[in-house]
């Protein structure tokens, strides 16, 4: 006999528990995809991604976890802003990202993106806010794309967009606390 405790939640249930989003609300109108700035780059446009999740099939779920889309989303929230059914796709994607990492099935095409996220957070952790040059240096070290985009650097430097020494903020201790609490 199955007891309450022995029930292992299905991926769909886990996703719902993590995000609080009911994917069955979506009626596939596609308005999210129509408005999404990243959709043309995505292997699974937002509405398609939601449809795959609706099926509840393990294969479809795997396809979503392995997709490039979940890493391409920039979190602009255009989709949820327009969705007639208020399906919070960015939240879903947040959960899907951590799930993909746990399952070890992150799209190989996403590695640079993840490195960027890590560099971004690293800089914030060090300085309490983003240090632009700091971010660039860490990102380049992580990805070894040493010369990519260097041509824009002089212009940015001249305009003061790339301060050489990162600014620190007053509440650095509180920021440390946040990082500690979120285990990052």
């Amino acid at each position, binding site marked *: 006999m199955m007891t309450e405790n022995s029930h292992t939640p299905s991926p769909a249930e886990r996703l719902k528990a993590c995000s609080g989003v009911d994917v069955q609300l979506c009626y596939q109108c*596609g308005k999210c995809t*129509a408005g999404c700035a990243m959709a043309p780059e995505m292997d699974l446009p937002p*509405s*398609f991604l939601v449809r795959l999740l609706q099926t509840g099939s393990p294969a479809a779920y795997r396809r979503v976890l392995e997709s490039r889309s979940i890493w391409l989303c920039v979190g602009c929230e255009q989709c949820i802003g*327009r969705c007639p059914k208020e399906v919070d796709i960015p939240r879903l994607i947040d959960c899907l990202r951590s799930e993909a990492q746990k399952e070890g099935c992150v799209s190989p095409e996403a590695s640079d993106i993840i490195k960027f996220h890590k560099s971004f957070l690293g800089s914030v952790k060090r300085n309490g806010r983003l240090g632009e040059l700091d971010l660039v240096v860490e990102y380049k070290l992580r990805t070894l794309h040493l010369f990519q985009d260097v041509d824009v650097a002089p212009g940015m430097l001249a305009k003061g967009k790339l301060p050489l020494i990162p600014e620190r903020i007053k509440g650095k201790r509180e920021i440390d606390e946040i990082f500690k609490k979120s285990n990052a």
Partner: protein
Amino acid sequence: MSKIGVFICHCGENISATVDCARVAQAAAEMEGVAYATDYKYMCSEPGQQLIRQAIREHNLDGVVVGSCSPRMHEPTFRRACAEAGLNPYLCEIANLREHCSWVHEKGEATTQKAIDIVQGLVEKVRRNQPLTPIRVPVTKKALVIGGGIAGIQAALDIANCGHRVILVEKEPSIGGHMAQLSETFPTLDCSQCILTPRMVEVAQHPNITLYTYAEVESVEGFIGNFKATIRLKAKSVDEKKCTGCGLCTTKCPNKKIPGEFNEGLGTRTAIYVPFPQAVPNKPVIDKEHCNYYQKGKCRVCEKFCPTGAITFDQPDQFITEEVGAIVVTTGFRVLPTSFFPEYGYGRYKDVITGIQFERLASASGPTMGEIRRPSDGTVPKKVVFIACCGSRDPAKGIPYCSKICCMYTAKHAMLYQHKVHDGESTVFYMDIRAGGKNYEEFVRRAIEEDKVNYVRGRVARVYERADGKLVVRGVDTLLGAQQVEIEADMVVLATAGVANPGAEELAQKLHISYDPYHFFAEAHPKLRPVETNTAGIYLAGACQAPKDIPETVATASGAAAKVVSLLSQDDLVREPLVAVVNRCAPPVYSTCVGCFLCQTACPYQAIEREEIKDRQGRVIKTVAKVNPGLCQGCGTCVSFCRSKAIDIQGYSNEQMYAEVNALLNHE
């Protein structure tokens, strides 16, 4: 000491298969107050009824309990039989031994005992029954129809053609409603005006119809068969008796740039105006808000030119009262404006229009004489995008329901456009195509297959104006694995949601009828009483219930008219006397009612009035509640609210109910 007769029916074997009917009759014969008891195979048959009639006469019975099927089935049969034998029918009660006992239990001792208990309960009740007489309410043979769209026109004509008088009240200067604005109508593409205007004229000329345009219902009192409506006739500033409708004033009025309602802002009108050339009545009114004289005190040009001296400035609004027996509400609907949609330009782009505006462009009587010319520069658009479900099926920002008519009119629009602009390209963005209706699916397929309208399944996220002034529609084709689609458009038509009229809630409150969360009026039963409201004598038809197309609107209008006619064809309304009554007793108490009027707030039918009890000098001694038997539906809410036990439902008094329940419970 009462003399009750108990008649136990076997219902073939429906009851006798599990209940020992003879034993029940024997047990009943022993009950206090029972003078006669028997059982029979089919009590509802003629011999069965004869048995009851005979027993009443022979044993001088003063009450009858029939143990049989549900009272819903044969209560009228047995009460009629009793009446034929001279017994007041309300002294006959049904003990439901079939649905409440034999059908739901196994054969056995306990089942028979339960049947005996049920009979015992009813015997105790009947011992306390009083003879009652049905209530007769006289009927005023006249109907009020509110709203002169196609629904109101149809209902008014149907009722009037049956010989009853009709008052038709329309708030605009002309009847016709939305149908008058339409170009051609799906699914047959017949010209809307051509089929509508003859009926408008018929209304105006019908000897049984009194038409009040530019008028609104101010208040309604009374109840079924006996309503009293106060109607406000807004001042038209034109004496209709003198005006010949020559229209000279409308050509002379200097105020020519007012956006016309009939053309949905795509054309202009003057301050003194007739909404459209086929208007009924075809006489102008002055729109005070835009008239130079009313606003600035100077002008009166129309007065100078009017050959019959019909202009009457400073005419006050008039109030009239009409007594009517029935009311039909046909106030229709409206569609959301383009300004409702931020993502489609907030109504700022001139060439983003609503479906009803497109109707005006396509209509031969419209601002472009039926040529499809876009509003911004009057050129013929070569690429038109139609967007379905604008605001509909959008619980987040619009309305959750489907507006029902847009799939069809969008197909019609695209088709009309292709018929008129042969080298034009039209695209329809849709979510689903809902074409459930006679010849509807075929109509949509024709648009796609014959007229080559490009249907794309997906919603549109944005309509924006590019730097070069071109409109761009950014949508998606979900059938291509959710691929973004961008289309340049010369004109965009939004099928905006159909919603309730702004004044609907207020009107519902005036009439004491219910409405749904979207302010559409609510039917008494969505399936079985689709044109009735919860208030007896008030009916509904057309798009004031929910968006409807013309066939459905007309069907409900004729349905409501049939209901009205069947009501008005009676001289009196005979109603069951099972209504609430406030008790009366000897002075100094007069009534146990303390006049708290909690019942008045509780009654869902506004049936409770105030009554002043006066002494001989006419001084008020006490104010008590009084139930209007015409309005009371016998629901009993007031009874449970009354703190001083002053109200009872006739035939179901507290005393009767307690006696019945106690008899059931006292048994071990």
